[in-house]
């Protein structure tokens, strides 16, 4: 590569740098001072951010597909085999990095937000034990996530996939002395396993079908094989991959781990469980869009699941009282939005929302963390309130984020969410997608409601903080507030890069984001591609319905905010009464639809029962009858053989010995064991020999 | 007269004569060596030493001799009588016998064996038996321990000493002591200059073999009362002491013959320094003059007489040496007289160094002694022998000069010795058996 593409050429450094520091931390970190740890880790992440930015910049000058691909080494040279279709394919998985606009955006988001969160962690984790361990895990996560998004084939992507799962496990269980944390970590890991199994099966099916797993070859392979629209194999692949996505991105039915994952430190929740890892599923679906394009059924499933998850999680978020759990449910529902976008083939919208969501959700978490920090560990919003003036920076940034997620123009959330809703509305067949649009719109309202419920309960109203905590409430250190501000700015302006054409054209911006991602999701020669992508459906002269929808969603958001204000700021007793009258609903939501209990009853306890049954089988049958029984038999037989040995075999031996002894006794008298008698004997021998010699000689 | 001629020219005449002279002179010599030792010790300790008997205690040996003769000779009960009785004699005889092969001068020698050196070594090795048997026979733990220690020590150091002697032998190319001296005359250099390391090793080994300080473990007063001599008293004790001193004289003579050029005067092979021949008579003259000068200063008349007697003796010796000068340069008698002087001078210097280190060095511990012997001296001696052998090969085959070859050998040996000595301290080595 020429110097012009320096960053593109060295894109492999982006994941490598955090890996190196992670290795240092986990090997010798114990001996380093906190300052050195912060310097190394944050520095490495910053360096990889710089490289990502550089790569992104240089990619804009790239002529277009094929996209720069850097293969480090041949990883799994598995050799040739016959695909399902029967033609010969050569399966190789190399350790290579592919940098196309999609992954460029992703690494930019990941490394940027990751860098800010690292900076934040310096202040937040400053007083915690295991500082080096925390940062080691964080950097390891950065490595895994960047590998995930930069991978040029499904297998390497899966490596990153598992890596982020591992790091999420390690970091959720960071306070491993607390049982709940350890359990949460295990839960996350196990639930993810289910999804990963789906992903893995998807990969296998892909290999067996298309004979390749390189993203750059997937689309050509698909089109070369000439699958018609809705080919069952592709549908199967899409669904399997989507199972993996649900696991990682906490969609129905595999979402239960995410709320518990809030046991981890807040920066972890912000980085892993809000900004980056949980969005891996979305990224994965988008990455495989060329398959989904030909599998409308899979797409519809994705859309339905996404929409339902959005509504469902939002409804649960309405009544939660733990500040981080509320954010977790909102994360789930936002992820639902993204999948809805993918489901309506508005991939760019999905990625766009992913990006903006990364900004404001990370900001929300960090701000929440700052609140918790200020209240020295308090997480229950019922014991907060009236923090507005006490921690102004946190409050302001939190409000910005809340507005952004609620979708108030011109903040980031508005554009992305509105894009999704519009794409959903304008998707055929109309009635079905109109219904999905309705769900999305309601969810938008609920989102605004619970976000501002949270906002009011936390910052406004009368203080319910215990006095002893009250005394030392303090604004967080600079290292924490600066990332807050930066993220706030991002969540304001972040959306402008993707203004819908309807507005952008008038401002002369156009939907830059969509155009940038265009080449990734449109494939030359793809049948029905033109019909599928929502981009083309947007007519040149903008449909007035689009503006109407914008208005509706904004009104929804405002309504939600107004309701929250009414209930939680003006007339608290009204909320009480509401909860009282609709007690069953309240309880149902509060207990999260009893899904955890359901899963416990269905899977967990059954598994435990299976285990105990097997244990019983082991101890009773195998040990009891098998081992002990055989031991008993052995004892019996050995008794017999002892008798036999003693009386028959030894008897014979002794008999022989006796006989030999009897006959050898006289000879034994000769064997005195005294050297001198032997010497005497051979002197005697000499004497006799000489005597014989003399007789012969003198004859 | 003819009979006298026959007797004089009978081959056995000279040896017997020398033997008788030795037997008569040696006790006196030993007595005065003891006196010398006491005087030197006193001098080094800023004392006067024996001053009572005779002028400056000159008659002390005689007095001691008489006293010890008259002392009661105790034999412990439970002692093994006849071994107890025979042990000192064995030791003393060994020492005396060894002297038989020592050439005090050219021809001034009881027997010139062609295996003389081996003979001396062998016979002096017999001395151990006297010590061991005596220590064992006296049925006392001190004695037994002393005996065992002494035997172990002597056997151990005989190896190193023998090796050192071999290094001299290689240079001399003969086992006959006389030829060794002549070889040094021929080389024009005493072997101590050609093989200094060998000389040093032999010196240490000889100190150990004669149970002298700092290696006097067998008779360490502070540890075992008097070692193997604890139970001895009176005349037997005298014999032991004489044997010890005789052994010292033997090792000193061997060293003198092998390394210090025997009876040769310094620079014997350079004619320009012949005036050194006038040294002996002058020395004795000075002594005589001193004695005469001291004579009137003696308090008692007897002492005046004794002093005068010594003066006369010195004068007589001076006269003898001077008369020898008048003889033709190649006459055997002159050589014998002068050679005897130089030889005895060197022996005295060697013994003086014995006394010197005795009064200056602290006593070794037994394991240190053994480690020094087995782990340092013997390896160095072996290496030295090899080095000298190779050096001689260089001289024969490669035509090197004598001095560079020997210098190289010495250098190599010193390097090895430095390496050995530089090695870190080994754990204390306590022999469970002699030489084990």
């Amino acid at each position: 590569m020429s110097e012009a593409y320096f960053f593109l050429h060295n894109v492999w450094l982006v994941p490598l740098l955090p890996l190196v520091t992670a290795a240092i931390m986990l090997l010798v970190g114990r001996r380093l001072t906190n300052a050195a740890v912060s310097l190394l880790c944050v520095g490495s992440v910053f360096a990889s951010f710089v490289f990502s930015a550089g790569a992104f910049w240089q990619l804009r000058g790239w002529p277009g597909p094929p996209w720069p691909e850097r293969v480090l080494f041949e990883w799994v040279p598995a050799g040739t085999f016959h695909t399902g279709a029967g033609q010969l394919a050569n399966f190789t998985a190399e350790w290579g990095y592919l940098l196309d606009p999609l992954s460029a955006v992703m690494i930019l988001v990941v490394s940027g937000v990751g860098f800010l969160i690292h900076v934040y962690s310096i202040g937040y984790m400053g007083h915690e034990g295991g500082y080096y361990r925390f940062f080691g895990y964080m950097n390891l996560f950065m490595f895994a996530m960047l590998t995930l998004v930069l991978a040029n084939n499904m297998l390497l992507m899966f490596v990153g996939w598992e890596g982020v799962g591992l790091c999420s496990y390690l970091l959720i269980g960071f306070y491993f002395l607390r049982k709940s944390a350890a359990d949460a970590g295990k839960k996350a890991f196990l639930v993810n396993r289910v999804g990963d199994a789906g992903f893995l099966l998807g990969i296998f099916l892909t290999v067996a079908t298309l004979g390749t797993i390189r993203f750059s070859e997937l689309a050509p392979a698909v089109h070369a094989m000439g699958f018609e629209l809705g080919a069952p194999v592709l549908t199967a692949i899409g669904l399997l991959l989507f199972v993996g996505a649900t696991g990682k991105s906490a969609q129905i039915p595999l979402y239960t781990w995410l709320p518990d994952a809030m046991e981890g430190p807040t920066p972890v929740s912000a980085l892993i469980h809000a900004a980056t890892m949980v969005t891996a599923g979305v990224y994965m679906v988008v990455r495989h869009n060329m398959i989904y394009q030909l599998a409308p059924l899979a797409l519809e499933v994705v859309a339905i699941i996404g929409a339902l998850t959005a509504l469902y999680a939002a409804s649960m978020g309405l009544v939660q009282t733990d500040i981080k759990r509320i954010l977790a449910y909102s994360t789930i529902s936002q992820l639902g939005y993204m999948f809805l976008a993918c489901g309506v083939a508005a991939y760019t919208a999905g990625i766009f929302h992913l990006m903006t969501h990364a900004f404001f959700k990370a900001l929300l978490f960090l701000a929440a963390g700052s609140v918790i920090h200020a209240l020295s560990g308090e997480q229950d919003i019922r014991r907060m309130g009236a923090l507005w003036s006490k921690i102004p920076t946190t409050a302001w940034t939190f409000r910005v984020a809340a507005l952004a997620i609620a979708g108030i123009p011109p903040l980031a959330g508005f554009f992305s969410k509105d894009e999704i809703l519009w794409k959903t509305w304008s998707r055929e067949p109309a009635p079905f997608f109109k219904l999905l649009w309705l769900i999305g719109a309601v969810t938008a309202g609920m989102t605004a409601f619970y976000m501002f419920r949270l906002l009011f309960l936390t910052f406004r109203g009368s203080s319910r903080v215990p006095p002893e905590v009250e005394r030392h409430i303090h604004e967080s250190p600079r290292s924490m507030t600066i990332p807050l501000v930066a993220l706030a700015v991002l969540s304001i302006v972040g959306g402008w890069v993707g203004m819908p054409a309807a507005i952008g054209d008038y401002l002369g911006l156009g939907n830059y984001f969509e155009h940038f991602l265009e080449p990734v999701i449109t494939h030359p020669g793809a049948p029905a591609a033109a019909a599928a992508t929502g981009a083309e459906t947007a007519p040149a002269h903008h449909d007035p319905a689009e503006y109407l929808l914008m208005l509706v969603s904004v009104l929804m958001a405002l309504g939600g905010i107004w309701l929250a204000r009414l209930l939680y700021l003006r007339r608290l007793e009204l909320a009480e009464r509401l909860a009282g009258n609709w007690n069953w609903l309240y309880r149902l939501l509060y207990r999260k639809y009893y899904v955890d209990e359901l899963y416990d009853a269905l899977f967990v306890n059954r598994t435990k029962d299976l285990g105990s049954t097997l244990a019983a089988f082991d101890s009773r049958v195998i040990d009891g009858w098998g081992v002990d029984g055989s031991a008993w038999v052995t004892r019996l037989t050995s008794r017999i053989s002892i008798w036999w040995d003693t009386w028959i075999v030894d008897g014979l031996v002794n008999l022989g010995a006796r006989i030999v002894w009897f006959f050898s006794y006289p000879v034994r008298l000769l064997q005195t064991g005294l050297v001198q008698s032997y010497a005497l004997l051979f002197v005697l021998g000499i004497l006799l020999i000489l005597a014989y010699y003399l007789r012969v000689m003198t004859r | 007269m003819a009979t006298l001629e026959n007797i004089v020219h009978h081959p056995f005449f000279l040896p017997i004569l020398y033997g008788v002279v030795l037997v008569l002179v040696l006790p006196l010599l030993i007595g005065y060596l003891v006196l010398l030792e006491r005087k030197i010790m006193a001098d080094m300790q800023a004392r006067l030493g024996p001053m009572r008997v005779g002028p400056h205690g000159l008659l002390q040996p005689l007095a001691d001799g008489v006293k010890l003769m008259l002392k009661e000779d105790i034999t412990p009960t439970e002692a093994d009588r006849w071994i107890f009785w025979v042990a000192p004699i064995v030791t003393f005889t060994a020492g005396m016998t060894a002297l038989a092969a020592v050439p005090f001068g050219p021809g001034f020698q009881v027997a010139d064996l062609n295996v003389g050196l081996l003979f001396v070594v062998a016979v002096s090795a017999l001395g151990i038996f006297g010590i061991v048997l005596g220590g064992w026979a006296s049925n006392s733990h001190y004695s037994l321990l002393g005996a065992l220690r002494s035997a172990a020590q002597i056997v151990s150091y005989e190896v190193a000493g023998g090796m050192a002697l071999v290094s001299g032998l290689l240079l001399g190319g003969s086992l006959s002591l006389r030829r060794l001296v002549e070889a040094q005359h021929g080389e024009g250099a005493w072997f101590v200059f050609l093989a200094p390391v060998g000389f040093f090793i032999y010196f240490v080994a000889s100190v150990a073999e004669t149970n002298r300080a700092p290696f006097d473990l067998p008779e360490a007063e502070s540890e075992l009362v008097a070692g193997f001599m604890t139970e001895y008293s009176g005349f037997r004790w005298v014999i032991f002491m004489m044997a010890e001193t005789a052994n010292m004289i033997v090792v000193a003579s061997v060293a003198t013959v092998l390394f210090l050029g025997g009876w040769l005067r310094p620079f014997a092979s350079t004619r320009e320094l012949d005036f050194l021949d006038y040294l002996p008579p002058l020395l004795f003259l000075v002594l005589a003059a001193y004695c005469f000068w001291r004579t009137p200063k003696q308090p008692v008349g007897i002492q005046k007489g004794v002093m005068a007697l010594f003066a006369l003796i010195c004068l007589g010796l001076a006269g003898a040496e001077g008369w020898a000068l008048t003889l033709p340069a190649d006459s055997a008698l002159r050589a014998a007289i002068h050679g005897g002087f130089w030889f005895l001078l060197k022996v005295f210097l060697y013994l003086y160094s014995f006394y010197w280190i005795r009064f200056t060095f602290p006593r070794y511990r037994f394991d240190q002694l053994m480690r020094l012997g087995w782990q340092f001296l013997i390896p160095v001696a072996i290496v030295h022998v090899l080095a000298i052998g190779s050096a001689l090969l260089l001289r024969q085959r490669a035509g090197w000069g004598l001095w560079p070859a020997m210098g190289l050998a010495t250098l190599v040996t010193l390097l090895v010795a430095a390496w050995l000595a530089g090695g870190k301290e080994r754990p204390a080595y306590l022999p469970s058996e002699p030489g084990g």
Partner: protein
Amino acid sequence: MMDLVIFYVLAGIAVVGAVLTVTRRNAVHSAVFLITALMATAGIFLQLRAEFLSVVQIILYVGGIMVLFVFVVMLVNLDVALRQVQFNRQKWVAGIVVLGLAAQIVFILTIGRTQDPGVLGVPPTPADQLSPNTEKIGMRLFENYMLPFEIASILLLVAMIGAVIMGKRRI
């Protein structure tokens, strides 16, 4: 004449020493007498013009081996050993057998001698054929008997190591 006297004296000492060695009750005494016998043998070697060998005999046997013996005797010294029976049960048989053997040999040497009577006569060669003794031995040893010499050195080395191992407190 002189030779005869010397020989008989030495031989007498040797034989008597040997007899006493074998018969003494106390091991130390036996050692002393053995030393005497060995010294006498050394003298006989001297008379046989084997000066080197006689000196070697004294150095090695008397100076080395016997010291070792005396040592061990002192280490292993048992007073009970003095009071025990010194000869074993087979002494008479053994004595008779060995004397018989000796008688046979004497018979062979004297009466039974048939061919080459000169073997036991006066040595035909002049005495000084062996001198200079040391040089001759050295030459012969290092020219014709190099290999046996080396083997002997190996033997000594092995013996030394073996003795050290034996001497260790625990093997």
